[in-house]
């Protein structure tokens, strides 16, 4: 069952944009990200091969924008439910290439808050959508993050 009834949080946050920041993207950053995570596709790690691709140079891997998102920096929506919380899921849509030399700006907003009831009882999900836009005003990536809160087993007894 999914519902938003009976969830106590500050609804004024819904749809309101918050700036996460503006970030300059360097070639070094892309290579470091790729090497740290084990990326092997040449369009992200090999200058020569990437130059021969449709992009003309290396570009950032599709999940690169995750570097600039930190769940702990989201505004407190005063969600009054549960005693434990965790990162439940994430969706990343790569809309356009992020290139070395780009400046990308990230803006986030609270997209949805809803409850689900499963085997472990009621859980409340808060979904934040972050949009990354480059210096030309083009959206390069969209990221949805879901954070869940529920009651620990200890508090249910």
């Amino acid at each position, binding site marked *: 069952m999914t519902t938003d009834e009976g969830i106590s949080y500050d609804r004024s946050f819904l749809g309101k944009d918050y700036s996460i920041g503006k970030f300059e993207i360097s070639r070094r950053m892309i290579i*470091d990200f790729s090497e*740290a995570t084990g990326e092997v596709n*040449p369009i992200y790690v090999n200058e020569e091969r990437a130059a021969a691709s449709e992009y003309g140079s290396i570009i950032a*891997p*599709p*999940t690169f924008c*995750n570097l600039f998102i930190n769940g702990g920096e989201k505004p407190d929506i005063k969600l009054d439910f549960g005693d434990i919380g965790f990162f439940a*899921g994430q969706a*990343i849509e*790569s809309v356009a290439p992020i290139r070395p030399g780009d400046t990308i700006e990230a803006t986030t907003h609270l997209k949805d808050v809803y409850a689900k009831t499963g085997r472990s009882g009621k859980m409340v999900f808060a979904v934040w959508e972050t949009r990354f836009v480059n210096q030309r005003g083009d959206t390069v990536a969209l990221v949805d993050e879901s954070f869940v809160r529920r009651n620990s087993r200890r508090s249910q007894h």
Partner: protein
Amino acid sequence: MKALYYEDVEIGDDIGPQERVVNVAQVRRFLSVRGGTPGASRFTDDEYAKNEGLAGAIVPGAMNITILSQLLTGWAETVRLKKVDVVFRGMVPHDKPLTLSGIITDKDVVDGEPRLECDVFMQNDEGTRLVIGNAIVALPMRIDGS
């Protein structure tokens, strides 16, 4: 790395498997990409993680989705990952074997672009799926129909 074309794959084809192990040095490097040195956290320090009730240090979710995405970006040079959507079902520990795998669930040409839909999984050596999700990738056609 090989080239892969839309005509080469069919619904039901497996992707992978690919074996990975993530160690603390890789996590530290990942957390350092924006600069600075990561402090002790559940991602870098066993004791810190144990104090939070975990069995040991874990791999950050942001790194897990990236590693699982590499099942697709590492599949072939011609693969372009358009979207990946995952659910974190379990903690991903350091220094333990992880298996990445996937299956093609649909293929279609959307707005003139040949695309595949895939289910993707990261599981531990006991077969427990720690991260599950789906993805959309674009592939070129061997004979460009446009």
